């Protein structure tokens, strides 16, 4: 494989994986606190449109990302209020959030449809970008790509090394005991859910401001759901989220490269397009079959409501 081809595949894979990593890490923290929020698709959609609108009006993509983050948080706040304060069924509330978010984003985004943003110049990291093969692919990327890597480290450190992270995991394992020791279960779950919303909003912002860059109805195109799958795929381990996201992104990119390479392959395009989804199922099966790893890493109280005074 010649250098430019390898570099392009790697570059495109990293770009495709980035929104998945950011969103999935947010969801991972939410789930570690015992809350199952099935709403990333909706939160990403609303984040994407909010970021796009603000970037379009201010011309500042960073304000756009901030707007995406806030929008994602507001959406997750809605969910948190339903699921944590009103103790509604988390699965149903999450589904409602997804459906509502996708609809709402289409609704507010109407006037931004097909308005184009100038594309944003990538951020080149000196020296590292000069490494042959991988340098141009990894270190000449959008700032949010580096952010996604830093986020992996931060989340891992937070969950396993910090005190608050320990409490958060304790809440996810057994909210009843955590409550008895005096930890504010509901507050921690609120914060974890808001963090998940904020990251989904950033993931959506990456799509509309950096990746495409444009807004169209339905542009999140299932990436929120795939982020959810990635969390299970990663057995709630931050580092493995990255591997999963790049595998998924890679599967999507590679099929295009196969088509564009001039190789005389006569495989239906639909077959190639289905590969990432098939791969997700296969990996999910491979990981889930080992009950021990799942039990070891999955928060025991995932999806169960908690009533402080019960």
């Amino acid at each position, binding site marked *: 494989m010649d250098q430019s081809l390898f570099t392009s595949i790697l570059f495109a894979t990293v770009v495709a994986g980035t929104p998945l990593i950011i969103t999935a890490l947010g969801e991972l923290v939410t789930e570690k606190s015992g809350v199952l929020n099935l709403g990333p698709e909706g939160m990403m959609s609303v984040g994407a449109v909010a970021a796009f609108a603000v970037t379009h009006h201010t011309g500042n993509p960073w304000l756009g990302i901030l707007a995406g983050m806030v929008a994602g948080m507001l959406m997750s706040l809605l969910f948190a209020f339903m699921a944590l304060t009103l103790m509604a069924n988390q699965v149903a509330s999450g589904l409602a959030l997804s459906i*509502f978010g996708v609809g709402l984003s289409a609704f507010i985004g109407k006037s931004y449809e097909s308005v184009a943003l100038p594309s944003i110049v990538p951020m080149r990291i000196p020296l590292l970008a000069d490494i042959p093969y991988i340098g141009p692919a990894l270190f000449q990327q959008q700032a949010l790509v580096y952010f996604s890597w830093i986020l992996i480290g931060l989340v891992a450190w937070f969950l396993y090394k910090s005190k608050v992270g320990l409490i958060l995991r304790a809440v996810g394992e057994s909210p009843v005991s955590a409550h008895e020791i005096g930890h504010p279960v509901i507050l921690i779950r609120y914060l974890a859910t808001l963090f998940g919303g904020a990251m989904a909003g950033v993931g959506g912002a990456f799509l509309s401001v950096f990746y495409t860059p444009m807004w169209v109805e339905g542009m999140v195109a299932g990436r929120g759901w795939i982020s959810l799958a990635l969390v299970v795929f990663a057995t709630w381990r931050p580092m493995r989220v990255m591997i999963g996201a790049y595998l998924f992104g890679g599967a999507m990119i590679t099929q295009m490269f196969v088509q564009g390479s001039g190789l005389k392959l006569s495989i239906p395009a639909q077959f190639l397009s289905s590969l990432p989804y098939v791969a*997700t*199922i296969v990996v999910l099966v491979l990981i*889930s079959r080992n009950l021990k790893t799942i039990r070891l890493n999955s928060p025991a109280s995932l999806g169960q409501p908690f009533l402080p005074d019960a």
Partner: protein
Amino acid sequence: MWLKFEARTEPSLLMRYLSPVLAVFLMLICGLVLFSVLGKNPMEGFKVFFLNPVKDTYGMAELLLKATPLMLCAVGLSVGFRANIWNIGAEGQLLIGALAGGWVALHFEHSTSPLLLPAMILAGALGGMLWAAIPAFLRTRFNANEILTSLMLVYIAQLVVSWLVHGPWKDPDGFNFPQTKQFQVHAMLPLLKAGTRLNAAFLVGIGGLVVGWVFMNRSFLGYQMKVAGQAENASRYAGFSAKRTVWFGMLAGGCMAGIAGLAEVAGPIGQLTEHISPGYGFAAMIVAFLGRLNPIGIFFSSLLMALLYLGGEQAQQYLNLPSSISNVFQGMLLFFLLGSDVFVYFRPRFARRNK
């Protein structure tokens, strides 16, 4: 002051029936506000959105037609949902059901047998069940989460449909356009009222609701599944099979969704194309929750959801509002319902915050 909730000793029966009404009421209020924010006369908006679609017989028939696939999918899903089996892939099961039933119609394209339609419905049901069996198997054998596998299978099903109508099943006289031949008259569901599009699938839908009601309320397996959903440990203690619950919950959803898919292609569409369902499988989840996972409730909630769809079209044509307004209404409705539900199990109390 701090809003607190106290558990009721017993779920409030009154609130259980009142909360959907409350949710609809809240949605209407928000709708009126939304219309005025958008600069439309709220009363005019209400009329166009909620009354116009059903102003004549044809409109009523369209409402029932649109509600049919929703009620079919929702009643099947609610069997699983009651037992905490989260099949969110009804959309894919619907598509595969449509393919299976459509295959029968295309394969026996010259048949005049009265058995053709029943065979198509059966094939539709089997197709849907086959697609639902995959997550059921992966869940029971490998413990793979059915929420994610059933969802991934939706995307795969869409690609299967796309491949078949672009490829092997393409109408040879159709100038290579992505669609099959049109079904012949014997493979089409009979109309219930001439001049409308309402067909026999509506009766199948009602039948599905009845069967669902009997199963949930009168059968032992239905009882077991309800217990499994409400108290997993108790159910295990009683020796109820968790695997059977998963299988049955998934297959019920797949079966009904498959029939819904067949009803679309052998009804208003009349052939297989890439555009069989505008997301009925996902909307049916809202219908199921809104109907309290109860067939009688589902009947009404499917009508309401269908009305929201038709209203969205009208709002576009006569008020110049984007059609996504339907989704906004649907999402709001579900939120309000889930929110109002808190009063079923809990009593609100305003109390001074005490540490």
